[in-house]
């Protein structure tokens, strides 16, 4: 009898142990799947995207002739804006291949050079008008087809290129002369969007995102904290406040595109704020982030023990003093964490921005929050939609940039949490 009992006990023990092991295995399996999906994503993005950080350029002489530019010897700014730098760039490039005479061939020859050449040349002349009439050596970008073909060559890959045999031969001549090299693609960080993949950059979207998040923070943080303090510390538990509470919790789960529609109807149409701007975008995202901040701040306030409030009151502090001198400092770490998580969520939104016109082709880097701008996720979407092959690597590189942004924000959340943590014991 006793023996039988112990075997049953043993069996039960073993079964429990196996159940325990099995559960751990499920956990490890789940982690493995999530980890390998993340790894696959990162490897995929990094292997496509790293090529976007270098740019194929050509170093060549430009003969800046006032007659070809069609300007006077001492041109005004106006004149320079209309200067025919394209012709100068073309003539200078054709001079490298004097044997190419037919018009059709010349056209196909100049397709090796990017629109960036004439733009860079214009910038150079604007900064140094004295160079008119002389010959200068500049390093200018080559076209996207060349860029793709040349970089694939450096990587030892074979790609189907849109370049024809003649163009490849011309390019080979330039490479043999040592004129074609790659350099770090600073344009990618300073330029805004472009229809030419070799000129397109993430700079405009980065500035746009920063402005949008700044506006969002400036609106959502004070409002959110104020609302949370009121609900937690002042409001009585009435039917009305319960309804408000329930609605705030619901609001946190409302699909973001609905905030976009609200933004279109109210912020653009009623208040008449300019379309496509970080100002309007920031306000819409603030509405979206507000519930997150309120909820985070309220739960942070809840964790502050009543003894702190009572001690403050006992010392003769007014309710406001208690809140701002004692409760909020203790609740700050939770509030800030919630705020940054809310902002990180806002950083990844495109749907509400679509409604207020921030999903657009914008080729200038915004200088103010009311200049038209896109945001990082929008830029990724726009490039992923583009047919040009050169945008594939740009898309991946933009994803890398947004990942860096997210990591930085989460890191900031951790640092702030550790810095502002006040022990309640």
């Amino acid at each position, binding site marked *: 009898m006793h023996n039988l009992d112990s075997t049953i006990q043993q069996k039960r023990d073993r079964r429990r142990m196996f159940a325990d092991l099995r559960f751990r295995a499920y956990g490890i399996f789940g982690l493995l799947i999530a980890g390998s999906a993340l790894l696959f994503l990162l490897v995929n993005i990094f292997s496509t995207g790293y090529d976007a950080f270098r740019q194929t350029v050509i170093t060549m002489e430009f003969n800046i002739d006032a007659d070809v530019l069609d300007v006077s010897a001492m041109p005004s700014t106006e004149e320079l*804006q209309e200067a025919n730098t394209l012709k100068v760039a073309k003539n200078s490039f054709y001079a490298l291949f004097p044997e190419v005479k037919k018009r059709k061939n010349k056209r196909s020859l100049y397709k090796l050079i990017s629109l960036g050449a*004439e733009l860079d040349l214009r910038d150079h002349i604007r900064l140094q008008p004295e160079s008119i009439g002389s010959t200068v050596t500049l390093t200018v970008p080559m076209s996207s087809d060349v860029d793709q073909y040349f970089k694939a060559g450096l990587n030892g890959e074979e790609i189907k290129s*849109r370049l024809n045999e003649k163009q490849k031969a011309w390019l080979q001549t330039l490479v043999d002369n040592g004129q074609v090299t790659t350099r770090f693609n600073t344009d990618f960080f300073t330029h805004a969007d472009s229809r030419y993949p070799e000129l397109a950059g993430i700079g405009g979207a980065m500035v746009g995102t920063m402005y949008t998040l700044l506006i969002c923070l400036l609106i959502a943080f004070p409002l959110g904290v104020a609302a949370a303090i009121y609900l937690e510390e002042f409001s009585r538990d009435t039917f009305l406040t319960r309804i408000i509470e329930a609605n705030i919790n619901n609001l946190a789960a409302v699909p973001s595109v609905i905030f976009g529609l609200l933004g279109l109807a109210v912020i653009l149409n009623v208040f008449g704020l300019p*379309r*496509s701007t970080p100002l309007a975008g920031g306000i819409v995202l603030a509405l979206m982030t507000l519930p997150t901040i309120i909820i985070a701040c309220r739960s942070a306030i809840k964790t502050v023990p009543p003894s702190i409030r009572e001690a403050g009151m006992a010392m003769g502090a007014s309710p406001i003093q208690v809140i701002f001198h004692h409760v909020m400092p203790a609740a700050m770490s939770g509030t800030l964490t919630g705020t940054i998580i809310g902002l990180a969520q806002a950083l990844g939104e495109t749907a509400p921005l679509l409604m207020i016109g921030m999903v657009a*082709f*914008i080729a*200038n880097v915004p200088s103010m929050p*009311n200049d*038209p701008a896109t945001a990082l996720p929008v830029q990724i979407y726009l490039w992923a939609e583009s047919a040009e092959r050169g945008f594939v690597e740009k898309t991946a590189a933009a994803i890398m940039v947004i990942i860096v942004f997210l990591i930085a924000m989460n890191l900031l959340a951790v640092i702030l949490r550790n810095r502002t943590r006040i022990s309640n014991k």
Partner: protein
Amino acid sequence: MKLYTKEKAIRHGLISALILTVIPTISQARDQIQIVGSSTVYPFSTLVAERFGGSGKFKTPVVESTGTGGGMKLFCQGVGASHPDVSNASRAIKSSELENCRKNGVKDIIEVSFGNDGIAFANAIDARPVNFTRKQLWAAMAEHGPKPAKWSDIDKSLPDTKISILVPPPTSGTRDAWNAKVMKGGCPAELKKKDKKACAIMREDGPVVEAGENDALIVQKLEANHDSFGIFGFSYLENNSDKIQAATIEGVEISLESIQSYEYPIARPLFFYVKKAHIGVIPGLNEYLQAFVEEKAIGDDGYLIDAGLVPLDDGQRISLRKNTKDLAVLNKQ
């Protein structure tokens, strides 16, 4: 006694500076052109916009791809800096839209028909030339069609060969135009009534293959297989007339003239509309308009032609340029 500490002063200063910079800039007038509308015109519009902004004289216009209908809705909402200046369209403005525009005070509209979109259905030059109707093409390609294996299954007059069609990817404008004109134009009325979008879905059981953007590769495949057909923009067909030939559609041969006159069924004009009231108010709007119709852009060798636009004929271009220079407004009812 409360001390107004340095820290507080800095904090207050920062906050008031922020408020001061944000508030007055809201009411500022717009100095950047805003364009909305068709995704087909978007690539042309952005190319012009970028080159226009490249000179540094004006800011690069903001171009949104909202679709023709969505663009018209925004465009017609009113006059003033908070409404877009230009609306791109892959069809002419509808009378209902025009009415809506007028109701909201958008009275003088400049219509610019800057070029055409023409699509060829072609096979290898030494294969047999064929004539198709849009109905036959739809039947051969549609998911919700009869899904025949051979052309002769659709109609006895068509060749007794396997159907094999290489189509451009959904991201291309060529595919858009093909969908609009052939897949929707050749779609049976009942299906069109029931679900217009279903008309454009292509079959995925083999005969219709997505071939990527590389037209040169498609040409090679057509040369290798004489039963295969490909879909090309007109400009590409012209440049490769030594390798491929276009089928006639409903008896009409594709040519510059037949596209320009719309006798050829797979062709459509492309437009953009400008608010006259904004010219002179939004800096650069008139200049953008003129830059779009320049020979450099829409002429036979223009950069928009490289991007796939079918040019207007010489006479049309001259009169278009004259009309845009005079800022002639639309007086359609």
